[in-house]
């Protein structure tokens, strides 16, 4: 067109079009080229609903292959917070048998990041665990009313026998601390809380699987995400074969009824724990299912503390059973020879100090000292050791003594595969200097030689001493798990540890222990044909209550198959409770059964009750 003076404006207008185009293209570029990965992640998160598929937990077998701990299915009610708008909560509460208050409390608990660090309104949360079967079927009938609520299959424990609760332990929902420590867990997962369930959690738990479902914007499921290409199957937990002999365990718990204390039996050659009784015991089934919380509370509040595994956690004066370790050390250090005899004038008397003994012939040498459990002999032994020139002083002598004891597994945790193990107490020179200044002498510490005073051991350590003697000088760290499916047990459960005492010295100790069974304090343990060796203990306790009844033994003498410690709190003399219990256990294990006579003895023992004061632990 002629005379169009505004024609140049077409450039401005086209320029504006191009400008907008460039700005938009830049934005598209930045989204699709620069941020594309992040966008894809968010998009995938939008459209994926991850559902955890729980694996079956590893099962536990006893040493003879009998299934002890296994799984049963149970259902949880879960929900996805984002989806539950419009769910009939009142009806849900009725169905599950809870109140509206319970409902709101539970919701508040779940939504609190403090309790539940992994909380997200997009992911499945556990609303109620292990609902009873009758509630489950009603829930499933009415499922259409409960928008956003789902059921989830879980595995809980079931037990063949009502024994060994403290050994198996239990599983429960992860705590917030456990959630923080291990990213494997999500809120509502189960984790081993006590016992073997806790110490073998990693092997038992298996591996969770995941199903990824595609969901639309209204969170309706639209089939599997990428046709299930990213789904993972759960991997079942590994089965454990325990070293436990379940029949021996049952007998032990039966014998310990109405008494507080523990029995530990070890196979000396392997360090395998054959039984570990902590009395009072409890039925492991109490800590499964919906009543777990209530039962747990009851067990916690019980003054006799059934949840405490006394065999590894309890520390006691070993009493005269400790003399065996002293005898071995004296021989090894040349303090005495098997022929060395000491006087006993109804006790050890030194200036104004007197430590009593019962009456027996005097003087006596090592074998008889063990079999009669002479206090004076061991006091003299320690006294002589402290006076020996080769140490150059009582401190060095004291620490030599300490080294011997530590080499026998005392004073430190043995490293058993159970939680809550105690160290026990083995004093050293520094300990006494701290308490007495520089004025302590052999006499000050003399009671350690008879397993009293500062010395404390766990029943497991006492039993391990039995294993050491039975092995003539070495031991394998005691352990509960013999085999792990497709896995190996820890190296320390396979390699023997040496003590500082040689084989010869132990042979002398064994002679003494055999003599104790045949002619001494534990004649009741003399089971024909089994060649039992033993040592009683009557441990005084600081509370001035009735003495503890203790027994340490092993059998047979030549090729020991079992080493055992029995500790009965306030049971009096060793022969009153500990010896007969130990004898029955050894008979059961080595003969496979009890004679009818022994069977009636066992019944009688089971009925015998020790009365503990109200405040007794």
């Amino acid at each position: 067109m002629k005379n169009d003076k505004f024609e140049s404006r077409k450039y401005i207008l086209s320029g504006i079009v191009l400008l907008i185009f460039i700005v938009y293209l830049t934005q598209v570029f930045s989204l699709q080229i620069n941020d594309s990965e992040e966008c894809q992640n968010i998009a995938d998160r939008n459209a994926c609903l991850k559902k955890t598929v729980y694996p079956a937990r590893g099962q536990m077998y006893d040493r003879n292959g009998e299934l002890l701990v296994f799984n049963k299915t149970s259902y949880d009610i879960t929900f996805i917070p984002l989806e539950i708008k419009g769910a009939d909560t009142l009806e849900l509460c009725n169905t599950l048998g809870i109140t509206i208050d319970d409902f709101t409390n539970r919701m508040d608990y779940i939504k609190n990041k403090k309790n539940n660090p992994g909380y997200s309104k997009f992911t499945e949360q556990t609303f109620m665990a292990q609902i009873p079967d009758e509630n489950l079927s009603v829930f499933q009938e009415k499922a259409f009313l409960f928008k956003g609520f789902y059921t989830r299959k879980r595995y809980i424990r079931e037990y063949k026998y009502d024994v060994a609760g403290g050994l198996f332990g239990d599983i429960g929902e992860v705590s917030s601390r456990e959630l923080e420590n291990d990213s494997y867990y999500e809120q509502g997962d189960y984790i081993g809380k006590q016992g073997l369930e806790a110490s073998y959690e990693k092997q038992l738990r298996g591996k969770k699987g995941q199903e990824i479902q595609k969901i639309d914007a209204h969170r309706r499921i639209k089939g599997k995400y990428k046709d299930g290409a990213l789904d993972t199957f759960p991997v079942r937990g590994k089965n454990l074969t325990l070293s436990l002999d379940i029949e021996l365990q049952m007998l032990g718990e039966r014998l310990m009824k109405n008494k507080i204390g523990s029995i530990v039996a070890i196979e000396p050659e392997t360090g395998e724990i054959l039984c570990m009784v902590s009395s009072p015991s409890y039925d492991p089934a109490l800590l499964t299912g919906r009543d777990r919380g209530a039962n747990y509370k009851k067990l916690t509040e019980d003054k006799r503390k059934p949840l405490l595994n006394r065999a590894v956690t309890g520390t006691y004066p070993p009493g005269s059973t400790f003399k065996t370790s002293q005898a071995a050390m004296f021989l090894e250090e040349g303090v005495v020879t098997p022929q060395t005899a000491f006087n006993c004038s109804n006790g050890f008397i030194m200036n104004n100090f007197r430590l009593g003994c019962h009456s027996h012939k005097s003087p006596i040498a090592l074998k008889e000292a063990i079999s009669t459990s002479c206090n004076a002999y061991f006091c003299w032994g320690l006294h002589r050791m402290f006076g020996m020139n080769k140490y150059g002083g009582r401190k060095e002598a004291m620490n030599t003594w300490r080294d011997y004891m530590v080499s026998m597994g005392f004073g430190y945790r043995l490293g058993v595969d159970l939680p809550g193990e105690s160290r026990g107490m083995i004093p050293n020179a520094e300990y006494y200097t701290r308490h007495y200044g520089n004025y302590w002498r052999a006499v000050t510490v003399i009671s350690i030689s008879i397993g009293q005073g500062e010395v404390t051991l766990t029943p497991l350590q006492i039993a391990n001493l039995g294993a050491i003697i039975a092995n003539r000088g070495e031991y394998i760290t005691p352990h509960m798990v013999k085999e792990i499916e497709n896995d190996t047990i820890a190296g320390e459960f396979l390699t023997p540890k040496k003590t500082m005492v040689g084989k010869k010295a132990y042979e002398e100790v064994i002679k003494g222990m055999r003599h104790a069974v045949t002619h001494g304090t534990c004649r009741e343990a003399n089971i024909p044909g089994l060649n039992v060796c033993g040592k009683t203990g009557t441990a005084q306790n600081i509370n001035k209550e009735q003495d503890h009844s203790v027994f340490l033994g092993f059998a047979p003498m030549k090729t020991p198959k079992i080493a055992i410690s029995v500790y009965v709190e306030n049971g009096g003399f060793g022969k009153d409770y500990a010896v007969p219990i130990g004898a029955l256990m050894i008979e059961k294990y080595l003969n496979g059964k009890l004679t009818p006579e022994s069977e009636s003895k066992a019944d009688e023992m089971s009925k015998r009750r020790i009365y503990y004061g109200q405040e007794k632990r």
Partner: protein
Amino acid sequence: MDRRKGNILQRLDLWTILLFASLAIMGWFAIHSVESGSIMSGQSGKQIIWICISLFTGLVLLCIPKHTYRNISLILYAATLALGILTIFIATDIKGSRSWISAGSFSIQPAEFMKFATALMLATYIGRRDFKISNNRDFIKCVGIIILPMLIILAQRETGSALVYLALFLVLYREGMTGIFLLTAISAIIYFVVGVKYSVETMSQLPVNVGQYATTVIIQIISIAIVKFWCKHDRTFTVLFFTNLSGTLLSYWIAVYLVEFNIMIVQYALLLFNIIYLLLQIRLSKEKRNLWVALYIIGAIGFNYSCSYIMQNVMQPHQKERIEVLFGLKEDKNDAGYNVLQSKIAIGSGGTFGREPLSCTQTKLGFVPESDTDFIFCSIGEEQGFAGSAFVMIMFVIFILRIIHLAERQNEIFGRAYGYAIASIFFLHFTINLGMVLGITPVIGIPLPFFSYGGSSFLGFTILLFIFLRIDAEREIKR
């Protein structure tokens, strides 16, 4: 008569038709892919029917001679406006808007047909022999022609569609309306967007607010550009250009590498210098237009200041929040903000060449709302990636530029004005729709021409285009 008709069909602009066809085909495939394997169904089938109806209508329109369009434009304008008013009363209420008339399962949106009627009316009026835009009466009538349908559509509560008519002011600009309006509108948008979007960001090396700094620099650039292209005195430009360039660069360099100081002081000093220099030059070089440039700078500073003042002190918190959400200063996972976020995620997840169809979950599983209508571009972005999105955008820009080119080759003002009218309408749809989808402009629901699912809009755009194709084909060609 027959011979001439044949000629006209031969003289149709093949390029425009090809562009139209390819946009329509890509659009249909986009709808089809959203639908496949997703929660929707049946849209692509319906859309085919609408495309056929539109093509048939287009063919009919091609047979109507240009002078008929001019003659009936007033009647069409009046009739569609009347229909528009009627719609307000008889329409069914859909999400608060009363713009749809339903008949059985079919429903139409009369507003779509007001567009071409208004465009024709405006072109006819501007094309009158005695029309002069500098004449206030004529100008006001033009504005009236544009505003009237806007008001009706606003009454139907379709704010988005009403905005489209503002595009027609570009036609007035092309036909000689003073550029001040356009300049003012565009600068206001730029200052507002830059000022608010970067109001919380601080420069990486200096403690200076990016929004404030950027706006002063843009004022310098725009005002000096005006001096260059509008004022006649070249020395004024040279002086301003070099003082501002050196002042800005030098102060930035010193502050970053030598002594840190507030470089905003330099920026304000430069602007003050520009104003004083321009005013002095009015007398010295007798260039009166300098006054307007100086006023522009003052106005721009005032506008920026009042923008931030209004944001900080006048606006209600919820209004402020909406603006902040729009500019991505605040995350909003509800409604509008959520939609834009999902839309950006959908586009971004496409990457360079798009995701495989099964993974296009954003558009197919409903995370992007209206993924077949207003947010259809997300589907292209997600499935075709940057390659596809850029291709579609390029095709659109070529299409718009082609129409501008055709408009410019008309030998009658009527034809040129109509051409610009439809170019402007397509351009505004493109700008607002993509701006929304890309999270640059506010969420205003208007369709992307030929892509968004919907019969009325496809038919409306086809009518707009095909009338112009006929007008273009009928132009006299100088031999």
